[in-house]
C-alpha cells in the first residue's frame, strides 16, 4: 500500500515538473525578462549602481511633466464621469420597469466592444471644429460663425474616454444590483425606511465596492489608452504618458528615446498600481460579499408617469453616443471624398475597393493582422490552458508565480509591454526581432495570455475533481482522462478564450504602433496612419470593416458558447 502510494506520487510530481517546465521557461523569457528590463534600465546607471537620476531627469522637460499630470487628471475626470453615467444606467436597466430595458442593457455595453481609437475617429468626424457634422449642422441652423464644439481639446479626450469606458462601471454595478439579495432591502422597508432612505442606507453602501471596482478598471483603461489621446490630443499638442512614450520612440533617437520612454513607462505602471492600492485601501474593511448564488427577483421601482420619459432619455442617449458615431463612420466610408455633400450621387464603394483590393499597404496590414491573430490566439489558448490546468488542478510549487506571470502582461499598460519587448528583443541580448513579425507575435501572445488562463481556469473550477477521479477509477490514465473528460468539458472555455483573444488582436493598436516595422503594419496601425495623414475616407472604410468583423465575431461567439460569452 505504502509503496504503491509513493510510486504514484513520484510519477505525478515528475510529470508535473516536465509539464510545467515549458510554460514556465516561455513566460520567463517573454514576460519576466522584458518587464524587469524596464525597471533595470530606469534605475541602474551605466556603472550598474542604483540611481534615480533618469527618473528625475525626464521631468526637466516640461512636456514630460505635463504628460504625467494630464494622464492622472484625465483619468480621474474620466472615472468621475463614467460613474455619473454608468450607475444611473445600471439602476435603470436592473431596478425599474422601463420598457425594453433588456434591449438597453445590451445596447449600453456596445461601447465596450468598439475599439476606443475608432470611437475617437468617429467623434472627430462629428465634433471637429471645421468639418464636424454636428458643428456644421448647428452653424447652419442658428447662423453662427464660430463652431460650438472642438473635440481636439483636453475636455474632448475626457468626453470620448467617458463614453467608451463607462461600460466598466455599468457592467459591474448592474451585476451587483442584480445579484443583491432583495430581502436586504425589504428588511429595511419593514424596519420603517422609505424607498429613498433604503437606497441611501442599504443599496448604495452595498454596491459601493462594485462602483469602486468599476472605477478602478476605468482608471487603468484611461491611463493605458493610446488611441484616444493620440487621435484627439496630439492634434492640439496635449500629451499623456502613452502618447509621450510614442513620441520619444519615434523622434527621440533610438538609444536616448528608449531610455526616456522606459523611464516614463515606470510612471505609467506606478499610476495604475496606485489606483490598485487605493482600491484595496478602500475595500479593506468591506469584507462582505453581497453575491448570492441563486438568481434573484429584484425589487422593481414602478416609474409610473416617468416610464416614457426614462425610455426616451435612454433612447436619445443610445442614439447620440452609439448610433450617431457609428453611422457617421459608415457614411464617410461610403462617400466619394471627405467633406462632399451627402447625396445619392456621391455614394460609392470605391473606398472599400481601394483598401481591400488596390492599395498594397492595407492589403499587407490586413494579412499581417489576420496571420498574427490566428497564430497568437492558437498558441496562447494551448499554453494558457496548460497553465490554467497547472494552477487549478495541481499542487506543483511555484504555480502561483506562473499565474502571476501569465496575467501580468494584461494588467500593465500595453505601451509598457511594448517598451519591454523593444528593450529585450532588439539585439542587445543576442536576439534581434525588432521590425519583424515575431516581436509582434510574442507581444500579442503575452498580452492576451491572461484571457486563456482566466477563461479556461474558470471552466476547470466548475468541473468537480470527482469527474476526473471517476475516470481514473474506471481505468483511464492521466493523459486519457485529460483527453476524454477534461478537454470536452472545458471546450466552451477554450473556444471563448480563442475568440476573446483573437478579436481584440485583430484591431490592436497600442502595442502594434510601437512595434510595427515597414513590412509589418497591422490593421490598427493602418487605420491610425490613414486618419493621422488625413485620408479620412480610407480610415473610415477600414474602421467599418473592423466594426463588421467585431460585431459578427461577437454574434458567432455568443452562438457557439450558447450565450455564456459575448454580448
Amino acid at each position, binding site marked *: 500500500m505504502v509503496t504503491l502510494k509513493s510510486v504514484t506520487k513520484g510519477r505525478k510530481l515528475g510529470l508535473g515538473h516536465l509539464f510545467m517546465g515549458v510554460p514556465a521557461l516561455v513566460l520567463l523569457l517573454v514576460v519576466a525578462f522584458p518587464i524587469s528590463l524596464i525597471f533595470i534600465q530606469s534605475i541602474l546607471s551605466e556603472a550598474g549602481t542604483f540611481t534615480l537620476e533618469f527618473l528625475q531627469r525626464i521631468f526637466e522637460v516640461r512636456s514630460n511633466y505635463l504628460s504625467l499630470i494630464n494622464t492622472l487628471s484625465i483619468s480621474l475626470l474620466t472615472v468621475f464621469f463614467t460613474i455619473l453615467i454608468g450607475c444611473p444606467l445600471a439602476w435603470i436597466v436592473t431596478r425599474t420597469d422601463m420598457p425594453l430595458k433588456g434591449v438597453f442593457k445590451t445596447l449600453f455595453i456596445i461601447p465596450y466592444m468598439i475599439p476606443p481609437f475608432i470611437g475617437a475617429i468617429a467623434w472627430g468626424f462629428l465634433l471637429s471644429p471645421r468639418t464636424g457634422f454636428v458643428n456644421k449642422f448647428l452653424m447652419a441652423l442658428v447662423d453662427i460663425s464660430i463652431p460650438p464644439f472642438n473635440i481636439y481639446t483636453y475636455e474632448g479626450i475626457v468626453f470620448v474616454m467617458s463614453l467608451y469606458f463607462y461600460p466598466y462601471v455599468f457592467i459591474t454595478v448592474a451585476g451587483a444590483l442584480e445579484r443583491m*439579495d432583495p*430581502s*436586504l432591502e*425589504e*428588511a*429595511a*422597508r*419593514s*424596519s*420603517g*425606511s*422609505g*424607498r429613498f*432612505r433604503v437606497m441611501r*442606507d*442599504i443599496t448604495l*453602501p*452595498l454596491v459601493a465596492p462594485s462602483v469602486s471596482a468599476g472605477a478602478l478598471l476605468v482608471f487603468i483603461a484611461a491611463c493605458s489608452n493610446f488611441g484616444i489621446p493620440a487621435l484627439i490630443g496630439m492634434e492640439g499638442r496635449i500629451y499623456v504618458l502613452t502618447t509621450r512614450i510614442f513620441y520619444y520612440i519615434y523622434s527621440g533617437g533610438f538609444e536616448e528615446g528608449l531610455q526616456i520612454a522606459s523611464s516614463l513607462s515606470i510612471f505609467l505602471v506606478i499610476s495604475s498600481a496606485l489606483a490598485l492600492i487605493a482600491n484595496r485601501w478602500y475595500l479593506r474593511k*468591506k*469584507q*462582505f*460579499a*453581497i453575491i*448570492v448564488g441563486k438568481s434573484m427577483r429584484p*425589487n422593481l421601482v414602478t416609474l409610473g408617469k416617468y416610464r416614457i420619459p426614462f425610455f426616451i432619455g435612454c433612447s436619445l442617449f443610445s442614439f447620440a453616443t452609439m448610433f450617431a458615431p457609428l453611422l457617421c463612420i459608415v457614411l464617410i466610408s461610403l462617400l466619394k471624398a471627405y467633406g462632399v455633400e451627402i447625396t445619392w450621387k456621391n455614394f460609392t464603394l470605391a473606398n472599400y475597393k481601394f483598401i481591400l483590393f488596390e492599395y498594397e499597404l492595407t492589403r499587407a496590414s490586413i494579412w499581417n493582422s489576420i496571420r498574427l491573430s490566428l497564430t497568437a490566439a492558437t498558441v496562447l489558448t494551448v499554453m494558457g490552458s496548460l497553465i490554467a490546468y497547472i494552477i487549478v488542478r495541481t499542487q506543483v510549487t511555484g504555480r502561483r508565480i506562473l499565474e502571476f506571470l501569465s496575467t501580468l502582461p494584461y494588467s500593465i499598460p500595453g505601451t509598457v509591454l511594448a517598451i519591454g519587448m523593444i528593450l529585450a528583443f532588439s539585439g542587445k541580448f543576442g536576439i534581434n526581432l525588432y521590425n519583424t513579425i515575431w516581436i509582434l507575435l510574442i507581444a500579442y501572445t503575452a498580452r492576451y495570455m491572461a484571457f486563456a488562463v482566466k477563461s479556461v481556469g474558470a471552466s476547470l473550477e466548475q468541473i468537480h475533481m470527482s469527474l476526473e477521479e471517476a475516470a481514473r477509477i474506471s481505468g483511464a490514465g492521466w493523459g486519457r482522462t485529460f483527453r476524454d473528460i477534461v478537454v470536452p468539458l472545458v471546450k466552451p472555455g477554450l473556444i471563448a478564450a480563442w475568440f476573446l483573444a483573437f478579436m481584440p488582436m485583430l484591431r490592436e493598436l497600442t502595442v502594434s504602433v510601437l512595434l510595427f516595422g515597414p513590412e509589418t503594419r497591422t490593421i490598427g496601425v493602418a487605420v491610425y496612419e490613414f486618419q493621422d495623414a488625413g485620408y479620412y475616407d480610407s480610415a473610415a472604410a477600414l474602421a467599418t470593416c473592423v466594426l463588421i468583423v467585431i460585431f459578427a465575431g461577437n454574434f458567432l461567439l455568443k452562438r457557439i458558447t450558447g450565450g455564456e460569452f459575448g454580448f
Partner: protein
Amino acid sequence: MAKVRLIGIRKDFGDVVAVDQFTVDIADGEFVSFLGPSGCGKTTTLRMIAGFDMPTSGDIYIGDALMSSVEQHIFAAPEERNIGMVFQNYAVWPHMTVFDNIGYPLKIKKEKRTRIKDKVGQTLALVGLEGFGERYPHQLSGGQQQRVALARALIMDPEVMLLDEPLSNLDAKLREEMRFEIKDLQKKTGVTIVYVTHDQAEAMVMSDRIVVMNTGLIQQVNNPRKIYENPANRFVADFIGLTNFVECEVISNDTVVLRDGIGSHRVKAHVPPGIGERAILSVRPENIEITEEDGDIMGVVKRTVYLGNMIDYRIGVGDIELRVEKDAEEVFPEGSEVRLTFKKAFLFSV
C-alpha cells in the same frame, strides 16, 4: 399586538393565480403557520401582509387598520405597517455591525442614542447574543445571524411578526433548538406571529393553528391535532403525516368495499359519498390493528423494519401494499399471514 384579518385575498402573476379565496382571521397573540409545498402561495400571502406584494383583490387588516384594499384604493407601504419580518436568508446587512443592524428600526424612528443603546442591549440579551454587538455579520454563524434577524424584527415592538421559512438554512439540531426559542420569544413578548414553512413538524410543534395550503387555495385551517386527526381532504391527509390510500366503492352510508373485494369495511366519511360511487379510503399506519386471527382483511407480511420504539410493516393485501406501524412487543415475521382491522379511516372523493 394585533390581530390580522385577510379577507378574500387573490394574487395573480400574469396568467398564474398564485393565491385565491384566502380568508383567515388571526387572533391577537396567536401563532399561525402557513404550511404547504413550494409554490402553494404561502410566501406570496406573507409578502402581501408585509406590503411587498399588492393583492389583486381582497382586504388586509392589521389590528383595526385597513392596510390593503384594492376596492378602496388603499395600500400602506411596508414601512408604514409596523411589522417585523424575518427572511429565509436572514437578510442581515453585511455592511453594518450587529448593533447597527438591530438598532436600525429605532434609528429610523429617530429614537435617542441612549435609548437605542439600552433597547439593543435588552434585545441582544433576549435572543442570547450578549457581547456580539460590535461584530460584523460575516463573523457570525448561520444560527447567530438568524438571531440578529429575529432581534431586528423584535426591537420595534411590532404589531405582528412575519417569519418566512426562517429555519430552513440551519442544520437539523439547531433547527429544533430554534423552534422552541422562537416559541419562547413569542410567549415572552406576546406578539402575533405568522410563520411560513413547508416543514410539517415545524408547524406542528410551534403553531396554535395551521393553514394548510396547496395550489394557491386554503385546504384546511385548524389546530395541529385536528389537522392530523381530521384531515379535511385527500391533500391534507397526504401532506401531513403518513397515510395509506386505498380505492374503494361505497355500498352504504358508512360501509365501503375495498377495491379488489378483499373485504368490506365500516368507515366514518367526511362527506358521505353517494351509494355506489367510487371513493378513496385513507388510513394512517398507526390506525391499522394487526393480529394473527381477528380482522376483516387478510394480508401477508412482506417486509419489516425495526425502528426501535416500533416496527414498520409493509403488508401485502391482494395486489396493494399497506404500511402499518405497531409497537415492538409482538413481532410478525416476514412471510407470515396476518389479519388487519382499520381502527380509524376516512373517505375522500376520488
